[in-house]
């Protein structure tokens, strides 16, 4: 049985990754799971300089999921390369670094510095950050802005780039096509859906930022639908995510067209989720005599 999956020419031992921002740089969860068993660790978003993030409360529970507005707190690329990359290098897993920025220049600066680090296999570009030059609407919500940043990043990137799409759009297929046409090597989706929670007793927002990104099992059907639509819109591989809690969930994304999957919020609920998903996919392949994972990608009928 072969659980390998290939994305942009890179071979991953299995299709199970970690969703950016839910797994730090692996350090915290290395106490719970053997990182060597993961297809890749996708790091928390890193910017050109340290970001302090948003005021608290930053997280709130919602029905079947959570809202977060961390604000991409991160130590900046320099500390990250001195501390987090060396930590991850100890493990036999691929490293994908998630990159965020407020301007195209921010992204490019980070991408260039990471170019000098061969241990980093791919770069995931978070285009859901507010584009400060465009009235803070996210890069990922307008096809032209997405196309522009994809081209600029691709120009400077030494590693293949994954554009992480925002689900807060009318037509995910259009966004997927824009990214592919601009040179993206792969896509990952979905990022969080914008949500809101109000404490009716205090009559205040549950999150200081008012809105937060919704994740967790509650959003899975929307994520599966978007992965299916994106997979039918482009040729480049897709990393699917959004509420994956079990191997069954992961397989649903793969059948919809994902070449790999990421476990996100459920790491918080069950820190062993990633390895359980790896084992469960193997069990499913064995049960249904699937020789290689590739045979499952996009294999939904009808």
């Amino acid at each position, binding site marked *: 049985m072969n659980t390998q999956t290939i994305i942009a020419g890179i071979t991953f031992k299995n299709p199970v990754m970690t969703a950016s921002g839910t797994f730090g740089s692996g350090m915290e969860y290395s106490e719970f799971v053997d990182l060597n068993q993961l297809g890749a660790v996708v790091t928390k978003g890193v910017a050109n300089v340290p970001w302090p993030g948003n005021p608290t409360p*930053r997280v709130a529970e919602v029905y079947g999921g959570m809202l977060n507005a961390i604000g991409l707190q991160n130590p900046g690329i320099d500390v990250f390369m001195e501390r987090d990359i060396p930590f991850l290098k100890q493990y036999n897993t691929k490293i994908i670094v998630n990159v965020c920025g407020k301007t195209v220049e921010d992204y490019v600066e980070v991408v260039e510095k990471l170019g000098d680090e061969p241990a980093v296999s791919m770069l995931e570009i978070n285009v859901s950050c507010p584009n400060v030059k465009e009235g803070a609407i996210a890069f990922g919500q307008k096809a032209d802005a997405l196309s522009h940043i994809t081209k600029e990043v691709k120009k400077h990137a030494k590693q293949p780039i994954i554009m992480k799409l925002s689900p807060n759009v009318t037509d995910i297929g259009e966004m997927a096509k824009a990214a592919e046409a601009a040179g993206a090597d792969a896509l990952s989706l979905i990022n969080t859906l914008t949500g809101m929670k109000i404490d009716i007793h205090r009559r205040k927002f549950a999150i200081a930022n008012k809105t937060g990104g919704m994740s967790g099992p509650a959003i899975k059907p929307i994520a599966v639908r978007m992965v299916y639509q994106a997979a039918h819109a482009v040729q480049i591989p897709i990393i699917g995510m959004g509420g994956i809690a079990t191997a069954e969930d992961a397989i649903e994304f793969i059948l919809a067209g994902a070449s790999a999957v990421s476990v996100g919020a459920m790491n918080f609920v069950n820190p062993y989720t990633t390895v359980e998903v790896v084992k469960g996919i193997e069990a499913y392949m064995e049960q249904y005599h699937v020789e290689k994972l590739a045979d499952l990608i996009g294999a939904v009928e009808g």
Partner: protein
Amino acid sequence: MTMKQKQTATVIFQQEIAPAIYDMWIGTSLAQNALPGQFLCVYPKDRSTLLPRPISICEVREDKAALRIVYRVAGQGTKEFSHYQAEDTIDIMGTLGNGFPVEAAAGKKVFLMGGGIGIPPMLQLAKALNAVTDRENIQVIVGYRDSLTFLQEDLVRYGQVYIATEDGSTGTKGNVMNVIEERGLKADLIYACGPMPMLCAIKRYAAQANIPAYISLEEHMACGVGACLGCVVKTRDMDHHSHVHNARICTEGPVFEAGEVEIGG
């Protein structure tokens, strides 16, 4: 630091000890390394409520095979926990956080100040302090809403207990700070857990008295292990994780020396 683990443990006993305040003993191997001031993440079983409820450790059984938690029913998750009975399973992760620095009290006169549902962690702390300072040095000052108090009979075994109630029905009328004034109490060191206004008052008091105050902070948490960066507090010094003066309450905390954190700003 101790190895963290998520496990399915067993409820040994549970009872309501005050209105909406529940007292539960849990049989768990996590008790072996539990420190005063550390907390557990408790996970509801209903799949609509996924995030853990951080609950401080109230007491560790002598044989280190069981932990006691005392919590208030505040929402659906804690409501679910309150229905657990002996022999039911309970999903927990622990032990989490740094805990109170017990050694700092060696031979000193201390205040243990607890407000409302911030009182429980003071019990295991008071027990532990008896190993490093005299019982009469351990002044436990606890504040309740009214005469429906809890954990008093446990606390008196490990220190001098002073009570404040908001309605004045028992002890000093007002809060824990009023007790200090009214009785003219003194200490070389403070440990505290409770609502933010109380912690802010304690921070000011400690600064004026020029004594250290170790306060336990609360914040909404998602992961409980330092990965999500949800539960941060602004710090005076640069934090070691993100270098942005934001410490993670679940990991660098929940206990901080009051001077280190910017609260009630």
